[in-house]
Structure formats: C-alpha cells, structure tokens
C-alpha cells in the first residue's frame, strides 16, 4: 500500500524538482516569466479595482475616524508587504549565499527596490493618516522609527549592490547585509506590544480573529492579495532585465535579440 503511494508521488516530486531546476536556467526563466507576467498584471488589476471599489465606495465611514480610515486600504497592505518582501529577500539571500544560486542572487536584489517602494508608501500614507487621527504627521515611536530603519536597510542593500562592479560579488555582499538587517523584522512586528506606542496594535490576527467589520475587512484582504501580485510581476520583470544586463555577451541573449530584430 505504502509502496503504491510512493510510486504515485514520485513523478509529482520529480516534476517539482525539474521545475525548480528549470527556473535556475536563465534562458528558460526569461522565456517562462515573459509569458507569465502579463497574466499576473491582469490579476493584480482586477483585484485592485475590486478592492478599491469595495473600500472607497461601498464600505461605510468609520464611526470614530470618519472617512480617513480609507487610507487603510493602501497603508496596511503596503506595510505588510514591506516586511514580507524583506523576509523573502533575506531568505533568497540566505539560499544565494549558502548554495551560490545565481538566480536567487538576482531575485533577492530585484526585490529590494520593490520593498523600498512599499516601505516608502507605508511611511507616507501612515503619516497622512496620522495627521487627522493623532494630530501629527510624525512621532518617533517604536513602530514608525523601526519602519523608517527598514527603508534605510532597503536603501543600504541597493546602495551596496550598485557600489561593487562585479555583479556576483556585489550580490553576495548585499545579501549578507539583507540577512543581518532581518533582525529589524521582529522589532517592527512586536514594537506595538513591547513599547507604549502612538501607533495602534494589530486589528487583525491570523489566530485571534479580527475586530474590523466585515464590510471594511474584505476590501483590505482583497487589497492585501492584490499587492502580492504587484510584487510578483514587478520582481519577475526586474529579474528579467538584470539577466539581460548581466548576460549581454552570452549567446542566448544575443540570439534572442537577433530573433526579435528580424
């Protein structure tokens, strides 16, 4: 009985391993993601339109914050993504450093500008939400300060990567910095619990439910999924461009450009 399961599972496992191996090949990655990216953008567009319609048009005004709570639909997904992208960058950086996988170096380095963009949006929109809610654009509390440190970490990774000429050496140095900077992630997450901050605590928990009304929660969840598609499409687009830039003397890139020029 067990042998049958093992036999049945083997081809599936092999297919997954084959797929991961194929993704490590630059020509295959370039070709495959080129077909995938337009679909990811399409899903992002549909989800964003749906989420914003529900959040900005259908959801009622908050009884305490009035209309300003609608900033939540851009601020909260951006803040979540700023941490998620840093986590994925650190994990990819770890794989790149330990197993010397070139595609992981490229993906980790392509994540940094997208993460920086999300962090910047989280900080600016949070500040714009803070003015009508708290009466101030900025306070040096633990959550806001640690999120600002996250932006500097992203900028540091990007700066270090561009400061070294040889791309693989640059990526390894920047991946190491990304790994060290990961210590900031639990600080951001737990800052509202560890310190007395002006920033509110979590309203949504994976285990403990949510204290937001469903009419306001659903648009937020839709937007949170939509931004993941934005990250995926943007990351793959950036990775493809980096491949072209790094492999410009290689046969597969020159053949690709020759075929396009015909």
């Amino acid at each position, binding site marked *: 009985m067990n042998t049958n399961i093992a036999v049945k599972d083997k081809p599936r496992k092999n297919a997954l391993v084959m797929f991961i191996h194929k993704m490590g090949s630059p020509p295959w990655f370039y070709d495959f993601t080129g077909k995938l990216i337009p679909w990811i953008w399409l899903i992002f567009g549909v989800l964003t339109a749906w989420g914003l319609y529900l959040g900005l048009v259908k959801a009622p005004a908050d009884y305490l914050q009035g*209309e300003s709570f609608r900033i939540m639909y851009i601020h909260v997904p951006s803040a979540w993504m700023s941490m998620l992208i840093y986590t994925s960058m650190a994990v990819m950086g770890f794989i790149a450093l330990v197993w010397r996988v070139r595609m992981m170096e490229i993906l980790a380095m392509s994540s940094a500008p997208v993460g920086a963009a999300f962090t910047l949006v989280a900080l600016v*929109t949070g500040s714009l939400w803070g003015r009508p809610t708290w009466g101030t654009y900025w306070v040096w509390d633990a959550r806001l300060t640690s999120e600002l440190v996250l932006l500097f970490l992203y900028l540091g990774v990007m700066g270090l990567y561009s400061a070294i000429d040889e791309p693989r050496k640059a990526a390894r140095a920047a991946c190491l910095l990304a790994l060290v900077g990961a210590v900031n992630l639990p600080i951001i997450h737990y800052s509202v619990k560890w310190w007395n901050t002006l920033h509110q605590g979590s309203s949504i928990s994976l285990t403990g439910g949510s204290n937001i009304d469903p009419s306001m929660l659903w648009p937020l969840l839709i937007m949170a999924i939509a931004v993941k598609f934005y990250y995926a499409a*943007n990351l793959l687009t950036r990775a493809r461009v980096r491949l072209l830039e790094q492999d410009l003397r290689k046969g597969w890139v*020159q053949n690709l450009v020759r075929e396009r020029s015909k």
Partner: protein
Amino acid sequence: MSHTPFIWAAYTVGTIVFLWCALAPLARKKSALRDIRRLIQLEESSGDSNP
C-alpha cells in the same frame, strides 16, 4: 477638519510610487536591448573586417 485631502494625497503618492516602480525596469530593459544590439553590430562588423 476635512479628511478628503489626506485620502487623495495618500492615494496620489501611492499611485506615483507604484507606477514609477513598475515603469522603471521597462526603461532599463529598453536601454539594455539597445546596448545588446550595438554589441551585436560591433561584433558583426569586426567579424566582417577580420575574416
């Protein structure tokens, strides 16, 4: 205090940053393809002159 300007400002900033972030790699791709085409032309012309 009206909250509308803050909402508009937040979504405008978000749209500008995300649009820039999505369009910047396309501009880099265009420039990379131009460099590759120039490189191919150089290699082909040097191949023609040095048989």
